[in-house]
């Protein structure tokens, strides 16, 4: 059986120490910023939520790009398929959760996050 060198596979070829290090640094940075913002109550809760979502989104993009080296080439078709699959799941998981909890808050809590802040925070 002819045996090709696994290091020549396109999936392996995209590996890059610089990319990994960069991902690690940027992700750590984004996480640190988020942590600081939350720990110091740096903004009103709604603004905080937006900024955190933005950080999370950035982190995802950084990881897709630098860590997984996603592109649309034929060699990475399965990565693309996997990414496309996660989009509806993402929408379902986050969207339905947001929906169920917004109706829950309407019915059980006086204050909505958009009004004054997550219940306990204003104590």
């Amino acid at each position, binding site marked *: 059986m002819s045996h090709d060198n696994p290091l020549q596979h396109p999936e392996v070829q995209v590996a890059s120490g610089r990319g990994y290090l960069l991902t690690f640094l940027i992700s750590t940075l984004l996480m640190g910023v988020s942590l600081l913002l939350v720990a110091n109550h740096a903004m009103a809760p709604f603004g905080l939520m937006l900024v955190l979502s933005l950080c999370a989104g950035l982190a995802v993009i950084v990881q897709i790009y630098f860590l997984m080296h996603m592109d649309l080439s034929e060699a990475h078709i399965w990565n693309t398929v996997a990414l496309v699959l996660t989009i509806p*799941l993402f929408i379902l998981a986050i969207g*339905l959760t947001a929906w*169920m909890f917004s*109706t*829950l808050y309407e019915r059980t809590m006086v204050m909505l996050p958009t009004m004054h802040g997550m219940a306990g925070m204003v104590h």
Partner: protein
Amino acid sequence: MLVDLQGPWSPLLGRLALSQIPYENPILAPLFVVVAIMGIAIIAALSYYGKWGYLWREWLTTVDHKKIGIMYIIIGLVMLFRGFMDGLMIRTQQAMAVGPDAAGYMGALHGYLTPYHFGQIYSAHGVIMILLAATPLLVGIMNVIVPIQVGARDMAYPYLNAVGLWITAAAAVLVMASLFVGDFSHNGWFGIAPIFELPYSPGVGVDYWMWVMQLAALGSTLGSINILATIVKMRAPGMTWLRLPIFTWASLATNIIALTSFPALTVALALIGFDRYLGTHFFTAGLGGNLMLYTDLFWLWGHPEVYFVILPAFGMLSEIIPTFSEKPLFGYVTMVLATFGIAGVSWAVWLHHFFTMGAGPDVISFFSVATMLVGIPTGVKVFNWAFTMYRGRLRFETPMLWSIGSLFLLLVGGLTGMMLAFPAINYMVHNSVFVIAHFHSMLLMIVYAIFGAVTYWWPKIFGFKLNEAWGKAVFWLFTAGTVGVFVPMYTLGFMGMTRRLDYVFNTQWQLLLDVQMLGIAFYSLSVLAFLGLLYVSIRDRAKSRVSHDAWGTTHSVEWMTPSPVPFYNFAVVPHINARDEWSWRKEHGFTDLRPDHYEDIHMPKNTGIPLILGVLTFLLGFGLTWRIWWLCALSLALIIAVVIIRSFDADTGYIIPADEVERMERAHHDRAQAAVELPQAGVPGGVTAYGQGNKPAAKGEVGAPGSGISSPEGSRA
């Protein structure tokens, strides 16, 4: 430390102290003695027969997907037994502790288990049965069968496969350790916020639960990546998507679910970890925490998980039923679509586990409808199986019995699930034993399918069949147990009995609880019968040897290989010509052909590293549970070091030369010839009856799979 720990802590031992060992417990202390004696006996036997080397070479360091699968199945069976003992204790306690006059023993007010102990038992029962019994059994069977069904020699990542196994084993050992060191969680298998928070559960029980779940999740995720990659990348030439065996399709869908849903569990558990170890407030009642968010995250995984366990079972039924109906599967394409339909819907129904949370009516209606939609693809499957059996030549051998039992349970479980999906009904029976009976019907359906699959594929893996009479005895005893326990349980659910009662206040429930004990007695007998089955079958194995096609009417690729399957699976990678390849070959008389020449085979080398990683993972989990920080740091550092060291090892495979392959193939061939005293009915197309067409039947026994083709020494007829 960032959190207030109750009780002592020392840098050397963390929270561990002698007082944490329950040597005074009247149940655990004798149990420990028994376990210790058994352990010593096993070690002594291994040494006496000089089997350590064999164990190390052939099992502990193996990367062969079949052996790894078998070890998964052994872990699953052992944990199934442990979980059964928990179930037996739960049932006994409830039958004993009915009404204020019920006697109390061993420190309990009623019955023989204190509420605290009882809580640990039902929590351990659930965790073990779902994550450490059902899941490893299914993963094990997928591990054994999928690579052979796609015509591959091993998994895509044999080394990763072994790592997944040993991490799962570490989780199993950790949950067993909780028996004898410290205690286990009492907040149910799914965890209840905020009871699992440190102030309300100050002991190590919740930590054990959390890390056991976390390790099991890690093992399953690694395994799912591997099976997905195997199916996508390792299919034999000619195996197009629409020729994929149906069990492989089911495995594909299952592992997509696993890969996408397990992260939700990992996150939920990690956030509990932050709360308990770092003092954050994700799931606390106040201070910005949101306890329902835990329930949401958990079931975001939890519901897909129930389909993760049921889809492989569906796949097994889809393999077994055609074989014993002597017909091809009815509606292959719809079966595949239904599998993916179920997988797809499974992501959008999780709120039905907490309908009573108080979300708005639109939300509840949405999830109710989504839940009921699952019935459509499930119905498609059931009708496909029914049409497969319709006008087939049914043979009621043990695997078929298990499959039919499984179908009945699926019906009961599915219909009660539909009832639970009505919010109006759900508000009445939520948290009653009706729910327990529902999901036990479902999970037992899976257990039936597993037993069917084990009996069905046993001869493929070991080269001889399990004893029919004993197998049927196990089936009927087990079924008597199922009926005896769960029919009364449904009834009690309607009578309003809530789940997890350590004390049963209503004396009118006594009778039904006693009937359940009868069911438990039957289950216990079935455990004994199962041991008898193994003993008798292994003792008489010489009489029940089989060749390739153990059941005579099988149809998929794995039956083209010799039984037992050689470690390299296929001497020459087969070319796949049809959906039911083996049926196709039988039909075209291609069963007795052997390749005209052999080529060198490249195989992965054994390695002890996965086992070392498993041991270190256990130490890490144990250290985290007991907050022994030096142990955590050390084992984590070692894990990272070992992984790095291994990654520099370029020499991970070896070559079996072609003439060696040929020699081994000949040996298999001779053994197969010696085995065929049994009447074999490998018949064209897999559609013809048993016993017809003697000539092709005789041909079916010899030869080896292969694409390059030449004639064997001659027909045996």
